[in-house]
Structure formats: C-alpha cells, structure tokens
C-alpha cells in the first residue's frame, strides 16, 4: 500500500517534469500544464487512501472551499493583474507548507514525543520559509495593488536591523533544535518569520516586485520541499525542488536583463522616493534640447508609407490596456503591405514575458514577436520604430552613460531606425526614474497622450489614407 502510494507520487513528479519540459514551446505548453495538473490530481486521489487518514469531512470541505476560491480567482483575474495573482498564490502555498509543518510539531507535542533532531530542524525551516513567503507575498501583492505604498520604504539602520534580526533567527533555530520541543516555540518562529517577510519586502521598490515574486516563488517551492523532509514525502521534495529551481532561474534572468545584482534588488532600495508607474520626475541630468512632437495623422502617414515598422511595447501598453488597438493598427498596416514586427525586451513591462502575454491576449501570433537580440540588427532597415509606453528599455543612456543606473542593461536600438515615434503621456521618466535622451534625439518625435487614445486616432487616420 505504502509502496503504491510512493509510486503514484513518483509518477506525479514525472508528470510535473514532463509538464515543465513541454512548457518550452507555446505549441506544447497547454498540454504540458494540463499534464502537470493531472499529475497533481492523481497524487491527491492516491493520498486519500493514505492509512493515516481517518475522517474525510474536513478534507472534503477544505478541498471544495479551496478549489472554488481558486477557480473563481483564476477566472476573474485580469491578465494585467498576473503579478499580483502569482504573488497571492505564492503566499498561500508558503502558508500551507508552514501550517503542515506546524501540525507535525503539534502532533509531537500532544504525543509528548521528542522528534529526532533532523525533524526538528526541518520543521523549523519549513515554518520559517513558509511564513516568510506568506507575509512577503502579501506585502508584494499590496505594493503591486498600491494598497501598500510602492515606494521603497527606508529608515535609518534598516539593513543593520534586518541583518541582526536574520542572524537572531538563525541563532533561534539552532538553539531550539537543542531545547526543542518547547511549547509555543512554533508560534515564536512563525511570528519571526512573518516579521522577517514584511521587513525584507517593504524596503523594495514596487517596480522590483516581479523579481521579489520570482524569488518568493522559489521560496514557496523550498518550503514545500522542507515539509517533504518533515513528513518524509518524496513527492513534496521533488516538486518543491523543481519550483525552487525555476524561481531562482527566473530571478537570475530578470536581474541579468536589468543589469543589476540580486543583492542590489533586495537591499538597493531602488526607486526610493520614486513612485511605481513613475509619476514623479527624478532630476537626472536635465536636458535642455527641444523635443519634436508629431500629430497622429503625420505619424499614420509615416508608417503607412514605410516598408517596415517595428512596434516596441512597454509597461505603458499594459497600463493603457491598448493591446487590442495595437493589433488592429498592425493589421491595417499589414493590409497596406507594410511589414510589421513586434520587438520585445526581456524586462519590458513589470514581469518576465509580460508583453508576450499581453499581446497574446489580443491574438497577436507569437511568431510575430521577436526577442531583443533577434530584432536589434533589424532596426537599420526599419522605417519607423513605434515605441508604445516603453521608456527604460529604449534608453540609450544604458549604452552611453556610465553614470546612469541603467548603464550596461541591453536595450532596444530604436534610435538606429530611420525614424522613431514615442507614444507616452508626458515627459515623465520610466520606472528607473531617469531622463531618456531618446526623446531629444533627432530621429525621435513624441506622440503624447494615453496609448489607447493615440492608437485609436492612428487607426482612424490610417483607415482614411
């Protein structure tokens, strides 16, 4: 019986692995995700036959409640709210792991047994990681929802305090591993964990949340793994490790694309004073050149009679929810024989692949989307580079100006195009809060206004041509 259960868990793990493997291409991704889901289902059903389980009422209630909540959320959430969504789900996962571990602890307490040292250690770790994930994710969620301020909250001695707290926690764990089991010790740990989660995410700027979320994602996986160690369950250990790895990789990718170290993201208090959505001007080196503006009909003309137009979307497109208008315009242009390509910067938007999802939602075929490295050589032969709500990812300072916080980050070479049209609402900087020389370049002309409105105008203009 036990053996069969273990076999099912192994099978489930294999499903997860193949599922993730199939995620490596859009064509197979859907089935991959479903495969993983099937694996999970199988594991759950098998667990129902676990000898230890006596009563089912609570399990069933829990499953029904949880499943329905999950389903509702999944159906109703807006695509642009993905980051928050993931953050929230992370939190729940972490909390669940922590709770399971605590339950084990409680069990030992009530049975009056002293668990072996390896169990005590793993219990504590999974409670800690779980709670940190939980509170951290909630704060991240709050910041993205702008319930909590997106500002990087900083206060004197912050790092020192966190460091001390962290060290203290380690000490606590070690000490408890010997003194264990003490009544309520688990509550202390949980408390510390929650505090740690809040304090470590609060000082991080709202725009860095995606990185944090990826990291928390990996934590939630590790928490599950730890719980696996506690209850000696390979299924949990393997799956947890998979998630842990994936979270770490995504974190690394994002940091790399932003050309910042993880340490800098976590402790750099990036964007302190600058609000999310960057509505405040941060005085960088103020540039005094005049800027060129362009009217919708001129812009329409320019594109309609060009050979190749490359659309470079950014966070602003998501804010303006203008993805459908973009597609409509692109199709109009293509009807007129213009080749339209989309150039996607790895960290355009606010989470990895943000723009891809956004445009996919508007039925833009994924093979019209080009990664930065594929499209950059193309800009020389491009008549119009249309920058829609992107800013940092097209900031030439990243190439030229070693002072700039963006320096070294690979960018889209829109300034190499014959002409470049930038659509945004104002001269306000992007999330990094720095001036953008591109706007003053000779090839560039600005088309101010909300992306959605401007696009609507462009569409009608093109129709009239």
């Amino acid at each position, binding site marked *: 019986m036990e053996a069969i259960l273990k076999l099912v868990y192994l099978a489930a793990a294999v499903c997860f692995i193949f599922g*993730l493997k199939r995620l490596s291409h*859009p064509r197979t991704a859907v089935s991959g995700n479903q495969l993983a889901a099937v694996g999970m289902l199988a594991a759950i059903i098998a*667990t129902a036959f676990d000898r*230890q389980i006596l009563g089912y009422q609570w399990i069933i209630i829990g499953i029904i409640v949880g499943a329905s*909540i999950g389903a509702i959320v999944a159906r109703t959430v807006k695509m642009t709210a993905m980051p928050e969504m993931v953050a929230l*789900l992370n939190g729940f996962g972490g909390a*669940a792991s922590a709770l399971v571990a605590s339950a084990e602890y409680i069990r030992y307490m009530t049975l009056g047994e002293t668990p072996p040292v390896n169990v005590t250690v793993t219990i504590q770790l999974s409670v800690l990681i779980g709670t940190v994930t939980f509170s951290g994710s909630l704060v991240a969620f709050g910041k993205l929802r702008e319930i909590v301020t997106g500002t990087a909250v900083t206060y004197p001695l912050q790092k020192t305090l966190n460091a001390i707290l962290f060290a203290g926690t380690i000490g606590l764990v070690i000490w408890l591993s010997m003194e264990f089991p003490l009544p309520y010790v688990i509550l202390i740990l949980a408390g510390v964990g929650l505090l740690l989660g809040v304090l470590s995410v609060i000082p991080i700027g709202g725009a860095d949340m995606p990185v944090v979320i990826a990291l928390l994602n990996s934590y939630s996986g590790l928490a599950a793994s730890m719980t696996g160690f506690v209850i000696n369950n390979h299924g949990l250990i393997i799956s947890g490790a998979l*998630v842990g790895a994936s979270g770490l990789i995504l974190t690394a990718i994002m940091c790399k694309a932003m050309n910042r170290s993880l340490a800098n993201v976590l402790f750099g208090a990036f964007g302190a004073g600058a609000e999310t959505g960057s509505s405040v001007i941060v005085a960088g080196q103020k540039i005094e050149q005049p800027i060129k503006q362009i009217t919708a009909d001129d812009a329409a003309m320019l594109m309609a009679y060009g050979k190749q137009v490359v659309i470079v979307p950014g966070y602003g497109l998501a804010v303006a929810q203008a993805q459908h208008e973009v597609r409509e315009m692109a199709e109009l242009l293509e009807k007129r024989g213009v080749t339209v390509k989309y150039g996607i910067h790895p960290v355009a938007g606010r989470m990895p692949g*943000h723009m891809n999802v956004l445009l996919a939602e508007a039925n833009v075929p*994924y093979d019209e989307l080009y990664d930065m490295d594929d499209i950059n050589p193309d800009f020389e032969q491009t008549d119009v580079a249309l920058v829609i709500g992107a800013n940092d990812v097209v900031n030439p300072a990243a190439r030229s100006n070693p002072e700039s916080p963006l320096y070294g980050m690979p960018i889209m070479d829109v300034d190499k195009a014959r002409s470049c049209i930038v659509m945004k609402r104002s001269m306000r900087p992007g999330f990094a809060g720095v001036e953008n020389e591109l706007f003053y370049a000779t090839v560039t002309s600005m088309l101010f206004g909300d992306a959605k409105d401007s696009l609507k105008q462009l569409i009608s203009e093109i129709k009239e041509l």
Partner: protein
Amino acid sequence: MIEGLVDLLVVFVLAMFIGFEVITKVPPTLHTPLMSGSNAISGVTILGAMVVAGRGDTRVATIVGLVAVIFAMINVVGGFMVTDRMLHMFKAKPEEQK
C-alpha cells in the same frame, strides 16, 4: 536517522538539477505562464495538508490542517487554471496552425 535525512537530500539535489536543466529551456515568451504554472506545482504541499486534516489528532491540529488544505488548494487550482487560461491565448500564425 541522520542517514534518512541524507537519503532525502539526495532526492532533493537530483530534483534541483532537473529543475535547472528543464527550466533554462523555457523561452522568455512563456516566462509568465511558467511562473504561475510552477507556482501551482508548489501547491503539492496539499498532500501533507490532507493527511493532517484527516488524521484527526487534536482539534487544533485538525483546524490547522483544514486551513492548510484550503490554502494549498487555492494555490493548486488557481495556479493551473490561470496558467491554462494564459496559454490558450498564445496562438501561432493561422497558416502555422493548419
């Protein structure tokens, strides 16, 4: 008993390797679905939660278990469904689909 820990560690390490190998193959295009999908997998802790909720130790333990089941289930169902929703939006050029 420390040995047992090491045995589990072996499994953990191997799984980590697989994770790295597999995930690094996922293209940027799919990073958001990857995030939510892997996130759903981390809800695997439901397996532990069920046992706790059904083992019927103390009332406290059972309640804890119940909450754990709910949370984990939200994570699992929410994660997989939202990922599915997202992935269904990715479409190839019509001619490719045929």
